[in-house]
């Protein structure tokens, strides 16, 4: 559909997006391991609605065993970028890659956003043939196309990398990299649009994650421990930054939303020496990029009797920082500790001096902290999403099927909400809790865009 004025959910700058209306609904990727297909669930987020805090619809995927994980929009504020403007597209389709089966589902959220439909499936062999990638992970709507990445190569090994799909046909356009330099491992990617720089991170090859985490491989330093900087324009590798092999699994990348700023945050899941998690700031140091550790969260001693099989020998609970999210004003960084069961808020107004401003305990391997609307919780805040205005934070509790089973046997899916004090601090919303039962809830996308869905080309 051609619009005469830009899609109202496109904002030139993060500053303007913050003024957008509150979300009324969210889409949640739900994984099923019980022989049922995965689903895209629609959750009512409007406190005025009678069905608030419940699943109002669930769209089953056409296949079984996909492992829905992350997903994104066909179009976003990047459509306003000045060098290739096309603002009259619609934010309408969810681009939903599958992590285990390497498909892409295209889900139409109009005309009724509460009743989405699958309108296209791009099969794994098409993607593998055209791009050479599999195990599809991150989605970002770019100025010229929709960008995705695959953690594995077509054969299920390395290298993983970025691919683009056409804005309109959703057909894969090929591998993105013209010169990948030393990069082989992949996990997340994002960019500094104002600087023409892309950043990619590293988890590991598919054989190392598909069957669950391996303590031996963590100790041996076999998981990824680097991030890579790329020339977004020329599609070339510029520089790798190594965190040291003790820093295992460098995952979520959260660049500043202001395109004139050149820094961002990345989380390290586990340190192989002391099982701590950390968050690092990357920044420009002259011509080069550098990183510095700004947050370290130590592992906590625990009674081995309370620990799952894999951790019994260690006698500690690793915090397992598996996701981060940066508010649109670049002020607050939310850090989920999936092991210890915490949602943390840091004031990162000064990106080199993160100040802890709030902690809410929920779930956790040992604590199983209850929500007022539930009993003791299995799982902990994992994927985080922040509303555009920064007032509400949502979290779901599943990481990845085989890793869930390792750390949280008998996990069931849930979603919680935190309310933010704009001056700093956050609290659990006691009225909001969504129980997904056997379904495992993963990424949340909020109506009209959220703090990890859009790229802004203007400050």
């Amino acid at each position: 559909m051609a619009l005469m004025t830009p899609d109202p959910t496109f904002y030139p700058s993060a500053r303007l997006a913050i003024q957008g209306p509150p979300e009324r609904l969210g889409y949640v990727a739900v994984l099923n391991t019980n022989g049922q297909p995965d689903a895209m669930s629609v959750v009512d987020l409007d406190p005025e609605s009678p069905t608030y805090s419940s699943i109002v619809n669930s769209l089953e995927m056409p296949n079984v065993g996909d492992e829905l994980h992350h997903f994104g929009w066909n179009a976003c504020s990047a459509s306003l970028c000045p060098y290739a403007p096309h603002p009259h597209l619609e934010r309408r389709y969810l681009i939903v890659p599958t992590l285990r089966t390497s498909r892409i589902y295209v889900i139409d959220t109009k005309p009724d956003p509460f009743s989405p439909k699958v309108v296209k499936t791009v099969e794994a062999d098409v993607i593998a043939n055209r791009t050479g990638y599999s195990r599809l992970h991150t989605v970002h709507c770019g100025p010229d196309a929709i960008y995705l990445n695959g953690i594995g190569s077509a054969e299920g090994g390395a290298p993983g990398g970025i691919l683009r799909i056409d804005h309109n046909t959703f057909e894969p356009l090929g591998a993105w990299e013209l010169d990948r330099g030393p990069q082989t491992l992949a996990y997340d990617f994002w960019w500094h649009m104002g600087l023409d720089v892309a950043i990619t991170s590293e988890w590991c090859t598919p054989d190392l994650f598909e069957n669950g985490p391996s303590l031996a491989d963590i100790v041996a330093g076999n998981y990824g421990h680097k991030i890579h900087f790329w020339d977004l324009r020329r599609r070339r590798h510029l520089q790798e930054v190594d965190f040291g092999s003790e820093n295992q699994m460098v995952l979520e990348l959260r660049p500043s939303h202001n395109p004139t700023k050149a820094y961002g945050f990345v989380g390290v899941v586990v340190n192989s020496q002391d099982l701590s998690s950390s968050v690092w700031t990357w920044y420009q140091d002259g011509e080069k990029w550098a990183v510095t550790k700004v947050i370290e969260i130590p592992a906590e001693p625990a009674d081995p009797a309370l620990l799952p099989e894999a951790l019994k020998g260690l006698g500690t609970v690793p915090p397992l920082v598996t996701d981060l999210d940066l508010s649109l004003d670049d002020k607050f960084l939310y850090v989920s500790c999936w092991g210890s069961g915490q949602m943390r808020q840091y004031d990162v107004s000064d990106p080199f001096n993160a100040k802890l401003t709030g902690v809410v305990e929920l779930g956790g391997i040992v604590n199983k902290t209850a929500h007022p609307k539930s009993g003791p919780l299995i799982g902990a805040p994992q994927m985080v999403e922040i509303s555009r205005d920064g007032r509400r934070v949502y979290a779901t509790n599943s990481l990845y099927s085989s890793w869930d089973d390792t750390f949280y046997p008998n996990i069931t899916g849930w979603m919680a909400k935190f309310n933010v004090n704009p001056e700093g601090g956050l609290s659990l919303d006691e009225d909001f809790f969504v129980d997904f039962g056997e379904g495992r809830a993963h990424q949340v996308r909020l109506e009209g865009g959220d703090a990890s869905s859009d790229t802004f080309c203007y400050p």
Partner: protein
Amino acid sequence: MLGALPVHAEPAAIATLGPLIGLAALGAFHGINPAMGWLFAVSLGLQRQNGWAIGSAVFYISLGHVASLLVVAVALALAGFFVPLFWVRIAAGVFLTGFGIYKLVLYYRHFRWVGMNVSGRDLIAWSFLMATSHGAGLMLAPIILNLDEEGAGAPDLEHHSGLLDIADTATAWGVGLTVHTVAMLTVMLAIALVVYRKLGLAFLRRGWLNVDLLWSAALILAGLTTLALAIL
């Protein structure tokens, strides 16, 4: 066949103001289209936190734009050497109309440039590609080819001594393209500065009309006009 034989009334460069006003109006229209450059200029001003960046960006963008127009003008002039004006108009008219319909139906196809961190040379290249891929130069075809009727069109070697015609044509077209580009540059700079200094980015959310559709309509109109001038 009436249009096939240009009526060479006077060798003067441009006898009437009509075509110049038309070219200036199209210059303003090109200047209004955010895709032609004012938006890029605004964003570079914001990115570099320097209003002067807008002026230099508009300058480079205009160079790229005029380069694209020159390519079209030279192509039309060359065509005029070998083919009667009637057929040049028919071909240009059919192509323009077809291109306009293509852009109308596939309006969402868009430019694939990626890159904010641009030098002056990059901006010239960007603007050249942007203007060329949007058919900005061709949109001027009905007026440029009509300068012929005013006495200084594409040289027709069969009927006239070439050199004088070439000089006349070059002068007339040069004046025309200059008027067009100055009009575009002025409008582009004015919009960029008003958005940068007064309106702010929020203007983009409300005020950014779908110029792509208008543009397609303009291409079709230009095509039909060219055809009409050939046939009538």
